[in-house]
């Protein structure tokens, strides 16, 4: 039972991560592989505040969102000058830098030893300690993320995001300040990813840099692509499939030494297969294929 709840909680965390990345990559077309970095910023901010300042959960999550949002703006700004593949590389660099900072700033982040002993959160006097409690917590944040995202993408604001994705030149000539939109959408996405980070940190009660690597970013990108970029529910489907699939492998009876490798192969294979035969994923309306460029 606990195992099942654990899987559900993980799915919830990845739903938040992939829905927020979808806002950046799926709706606005800015493919970013820095999402695990925002996830990490959220987790570390909350963990450090909880451990060093003993501040309450809601304050920590608020600070994590704001801080991660500001970092998101920093990553969004290069997207104004560099495009497409080069932008992906820039986000990659940011991801690597974030990991290095977490891994090497030992006096502050604990380095590779991580931050153990994150206390259980208390919200409005309620201490959350059981798996069930965390599932409710994750569920609430998932619902909030989906509501906020739905509100955004169905608004005129969301229409501008899609316009930027499809044709920046047209969006500009329709009088839209695309620079402001790109930075804003990065702040939003990063802020939401921080929520996932905070919940993760409290849930696992121990964080170290290995949870926030490039591989993790790529995993989140895979969820978005396989689930369907640019659709509200696509990443939800993607998160369910990609989180449960490797767990199912456990029951096939593969020796654990092989299972880990098979998992990697499976992700890679799935991604290649989807890119070839179903680039829009399960539910997506946008495939990462750009044909136009220039003026």
């Amino acid at each position, binding site marked *: 039972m606990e195992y099942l709840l654990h899987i559900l909680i993980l799915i919830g965390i990845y739903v938040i991560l992939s829905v927020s990345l979808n806002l950046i990559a799926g709706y606005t077309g800015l493919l970013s592989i820095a999402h695990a970095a925002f996830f990490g910023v959220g987790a570390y901010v909350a963990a450090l505040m909880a451990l060093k300042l003993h501040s309450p959960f809601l304050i920590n999550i608020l600070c994590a969102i704001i801080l991660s949002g500001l970092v998101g703006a920093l990553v969004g700004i290069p997207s104004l000058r560099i495009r497409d593949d080069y932008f992906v590389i820039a986000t990659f660099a940011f991801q690597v830098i974030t990991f290095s900072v977490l891994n090497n700033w030992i006096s502050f982040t604990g380095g590779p030893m991580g931050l153990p002993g994150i206390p259980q959160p208390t919200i409005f006097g309620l201490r959350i300690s059981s798996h069930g409690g965390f599932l409710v917590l994750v569920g609430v944040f998932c619902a909030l993320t989906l509501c*906020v995202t739905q*509100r*955004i993408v169905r*608004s*005129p*604001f*969301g*229409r*501008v995001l*899609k*316009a930027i994705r*499809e*044709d920046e*030149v*047209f*969006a*500009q*000539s*329709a*009088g*839209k*300040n*695309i620079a402001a939109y790109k930075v*804003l959408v990065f702040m*939003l996405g990063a802020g939401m990813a921080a929520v996932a980070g905070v919940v993760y940190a409290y849930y696992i009660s121990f964080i170290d840099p290995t949870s926030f690597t490039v591989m993790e970013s790529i995993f989140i990108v895979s969820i978005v692509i396989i689930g369907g970029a640019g659709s509200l529910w696509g990443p939800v489907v993607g998160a369910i499939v990609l989180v449960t699939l490797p767990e199912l492998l456990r029951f096939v009876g593969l020796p654990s030494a092989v299972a880990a490798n098979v998992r990697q192969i499976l992700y890679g294979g799935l991604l290649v297969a989807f890119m070839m035969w179903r680039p829009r994923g399960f539910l997506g*309306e*946008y495939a990462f294929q750009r044909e136009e460029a220039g*003026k």
Partner: protein
Amino acid sequence: MSGEMLEVRGLEKRFDGVRALAGFSCSLRPGEILGLIGPNGAGKTTLFNVVSGFIAANSGKVFFKDKDITGASPYRITNRGISRTFQNLRLIRQISVLDNVLLSFQDQPGEKLRNVFFNWRKSRERENANREEAIGLLEETGLAHKAGDPAEELSYGQQKLLSLVCCLAAKSEVLLLDEPVAGIAPEMTERILATIRGLPSRGRSVILIEHNLDAVMQVCDRVIFMDAGAKVSEGTPEEVRNDPRVIEAYID
């Protein structure tokens, strides 16, 4: 100063030694349709790119209603009231025809993030008003029955017409139309030209780039013939058509 809608003074633009604009000057009067003709590479589209802010000129000035707008970013120029269409059609193909038009309205409060969460009643009211107006525009131009289709499903001519409707939705006072009827079937050409001809009565002024000389002669009040980035000849359509330099250029 002069009461011109748009005034361009001494624009100079070089691309790696090629002078795309060589001290080009011209002005556009209120309610006028100005035709811009000339061989390929004469600098016509470059002029549009400079005026609409997509390219910075090396020197020279652009004035919109006597205000200097040289070097402003494209979105600001559109906000101020200059819209353009593109030679190689630009629309958001995946969203509906109606959404393309809705996207082109200026000052929709719902495009501000804070209004997505607060104040959304106001943006919804505006959205409804815009939608009504957009459908009206689509009806006038005969695209209303396609309003719900993705823009990519329109024919080439319909897409060109749609990009014109988008300029109308932006309520810009100056429209820069880059080859609005190039490569389009005759009856659609007629429809587009009729729409263009009606623009002055809506209070719009137009600069029209077009290779189809008949179309230019039909709709333009004044024509400029451009070559190698400079003005060669200017006058009524008749005068320009009979200018020997123009005849020579077109016979070549």
